[in-house]
């Protein structure tokens, strides 16, 4: 994996802390790292040059603040710049006074047009609209069939006739009018931007339906070519916005910045998962962190939100800080945590975790053994590990296929941990000493600071 920008800057900025001002020389070194980070994130070379110049003008002479170290300060400048470049303009869907509002989806092969068309239809439906889909991709085998299946899942009608895609689109529009559907989404075949014949075809489709919105579908994994593709499609179709797909992957997604910068058109939607409701409006701030390689944290949070039941997690956190956490709670939370993937992977994504901890091995069988031990305990034992005497220990170890020493170790460590957590709870409760404490008090200070700087209202 690539280094995050903060890791990168670490080396360059050593010894910079005590100076009052960033010199030209400092800035040049720092910007070289920024450039590499952006290139590794697939931001287009030309766009990178532009971004770096913007940042240079802000960074030279910037006073080194006492609150932030120079690294943080540079990151903040870069981050803010990216957010402003990615955001700036938002797309508001204005519905046509004479329905239907027509949306045309275009893009390269495999960028995710068909799935996005269905997801977009579902989004319109959630807005109280009555969308209809037109399958004008008659190129790829079974593309229309795919759209029909998705339409059936969403209970949204799909129109298509074999033969000519332009005709299909035109008939689809007539169909939508006669059935009173107020949004029409036209899926088109994937095409290469340099394929003149196919580009002419999509232009003809566009003329036939006269779309209110033309969306370019862009894969978040796209590299340098994103710019050329976006320009070619814009020249042919006059793009109104971008749908960024496959954001649930781990690509940094620099293509988003390149396309936004080149077209000057908003990124309207982001597709974030395999399910049909994994489709949302675009968040520029999250994308900026992601491009800089600091988006892991957000991924982690998103995954946690999907997997954990919020109420239970809150309850468990509160219990933990009050020292009332039991092995049963622990088991439950551990099982939820496992749904997020390997513990090693999760650890790797945690911000501020020291290297030696990230490299500590957490073998899966050790986790399994821990689970087995707890599974072999009775409910009373889980609630109150002090009950566990010699004979119970033997029983548990036999039941779980471990040794008495393993059981001992687990109980001992759990007790120590509980104590530690209780201490932590008392420390963080210092501010507002109400009995229950604010719900967010489970948060370690550093994380809280990192989060609020990243997610704070803008």
């Amino acid at each position: 994996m690539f280094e995050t920008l903060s890791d990168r800057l670490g080396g360059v900025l050593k010894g910079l802390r005590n100076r009052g001002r960033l010199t030209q020389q400092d800035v040049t070194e720092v910007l070289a790292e920024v450039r590499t980070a952006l290139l590794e994130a697939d931001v287009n070379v030309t766009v990178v040059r532009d971004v770096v110049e913007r940042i240079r003008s802000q960074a030279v002479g910037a006073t080194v603040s006492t609150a932030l170290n120079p690294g943080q300060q540079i990151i903040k400048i870069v981050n803010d710049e990216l957010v402003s470049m990615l955001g700036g303009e938002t797309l508001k869907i204005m519905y046509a006074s004479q329905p239907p509002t027509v949306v045309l989806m275009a893009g390269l092969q495999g960028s995710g047009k068909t799935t996005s068309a269905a997801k977009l239809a579902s989004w319109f439906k959630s807005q109280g609209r009555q969308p209809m889909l037109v399958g004008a991709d008659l190129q790829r085998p079974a593309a229309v069939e795919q759209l029909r299946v998705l339409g059936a899942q969403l209970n949204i009608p799909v129109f298509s006739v074999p033969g000519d895609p332009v005709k299909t689109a035109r008939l689809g529009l007539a169909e939508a009018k006669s059935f009173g559907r107020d949004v029409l989404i036209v899926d088109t075949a994937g095409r290469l931007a340099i394929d003149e014949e196919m580009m002419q075809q999509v232009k003809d489709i566009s003329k036939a339906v006269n779309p209110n919105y033309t969306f370019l579908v862009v894969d978040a994994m796209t590299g340098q070519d994103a710019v050329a593709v976006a320009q070619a499609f814009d020249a042919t179709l006059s793009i109104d916005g971008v749908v960024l797909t496959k954001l649930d992957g781990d690509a940094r997604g620099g293509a988003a910045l390149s396309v936004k910068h080149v077209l000057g058109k908003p990124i309207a939607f982001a597709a974030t998962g395999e399910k049909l409701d994994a489709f949302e409006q675009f968040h520029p701030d999250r994308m900026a962190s992601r491009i800089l390689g600091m988006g892991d944290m957000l991924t982690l949070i998103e995954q946690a939100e999907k997997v954990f039941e919020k109420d239970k997690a809150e309850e468990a956190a509160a219990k933990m800080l009050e020292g009332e956490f039991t092995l049963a709670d622990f088991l439950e939370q551990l099982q939820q945590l496992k749904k997020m993937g390997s513990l090693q992977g999760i650890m790797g994504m945690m911000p501020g975790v020291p290297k030696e901890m990230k490299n500590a091995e957490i073998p899966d069988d050790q986790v399994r053994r821990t689970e087995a031990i707890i599974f072999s305990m009775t409910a009373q034992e889980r609630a109150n590990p002090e009950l566990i005497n010699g004979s119970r220990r033997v029983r548990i170890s036999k039941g779980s296929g471990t040794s008495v020493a393993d059981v001992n170790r687990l109980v001992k460590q759990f007790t120590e941990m509980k104590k530690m957590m209780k201490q932590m709870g008392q420390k963080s409760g210092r501010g507002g000493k109400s009995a229950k404490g604010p719900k967010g008090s489970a948060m370690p200070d550093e994380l809280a600071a990192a989060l609020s700087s990243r997610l704070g209202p803008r």
Partner: protein
Amino acid sequence: MSAINILAQFVAGDTAPKIMLVLALLVSIFGIGVVVSSRRNRVTTSPQTRELASQTASNLTSESIVERDVSVRARLSKASSAFAGAIATALTSSSITQQTWDDLEEALLRADVGVASTARVLAPLRELVKAKKITQPSDLMSALQNEMTAQLSQNSRELNFDSSLGAPNIWLVVGVNGAGKTTTIGKLSAQQSALGRSVLLAAGDTFRAAAGEQLETWASRSGAEIVRGAEGGDPSSVIFDGVARATSRKIDLVLADTAGRLQNNTNLMEELAKVRRVADKGSGKVTEVLLVIDATTGQNGLTQAKQFSLATQVTGVVLTKLDGSAKGGIVFAIETELQIPIKLVGLGETIDDLVAFDAQEFVSALFE
């Protein structure tokens, strides 16, 4: 005193209690979850968002209306075309300057070769220029191309087919969503049939709607048999059934399709690893695992190759959609860093558009 520091002390200590690590993770994640979800709630109910969501300006015309922030409007013009000539100009100049190096670097970066690989191929050339062994820009260019081509000639690009097996060879095709797996299988099927091999397609993509239908179209085009499972069914069992059928009918080659998946999706990657294991369990043998990579893919391609290799021991790369404007330079990094040979290249939508990879052609196209 932060929680992380306390934890670090515990881990550094001799007892190294793993269980505490896990617990610590739990606490932090609770904390994050709680704080963020409360923030989220605040965000989702903010007036602007609500305005966005319930925008129903039916009295407006059908014109698309985009609010623009003029300050961010600085557009990029002629991004790629401007560069095409630049390198040609650099090469005709009489001496090697910083500009020459910058242009070469930029050409490689624009082709998605990546920062690290670019630095690696340029480093030995810098030595040669320093030692005055290369003095002309055009010599530098050919030296660079030779160097890159040489780096790409370590591995065999033959598709592995073991005719002495006495059982079906299985070629498993994997990759992210939309890379072109199903199309690649269709083309492979036609080509292998033309070579006189009997082919069976196993429709292991049970997830994407109508993926089976798509493969079925290719099967009938190429005269191959096909085994399909239920939509949403277990892909391993579909492929296992395909191999069983191929064995009983003495079919030479099973081409196994799989659903596209993003490499950071742990569950789906585990499912794929299982597909690979199960495929080997029947009478056939997996002799080739092809990773399909879209030529437009950027630096994420390297991560794809790593993760798919971990799950399925990839034996070769298929670079698709190279007929577009993208150069597919990331596969250079994949082959030279991970030693996974690029075996095939997709150049279009017809059956003949899947061809053997040619290192020399590929390298010279990077600079065009």
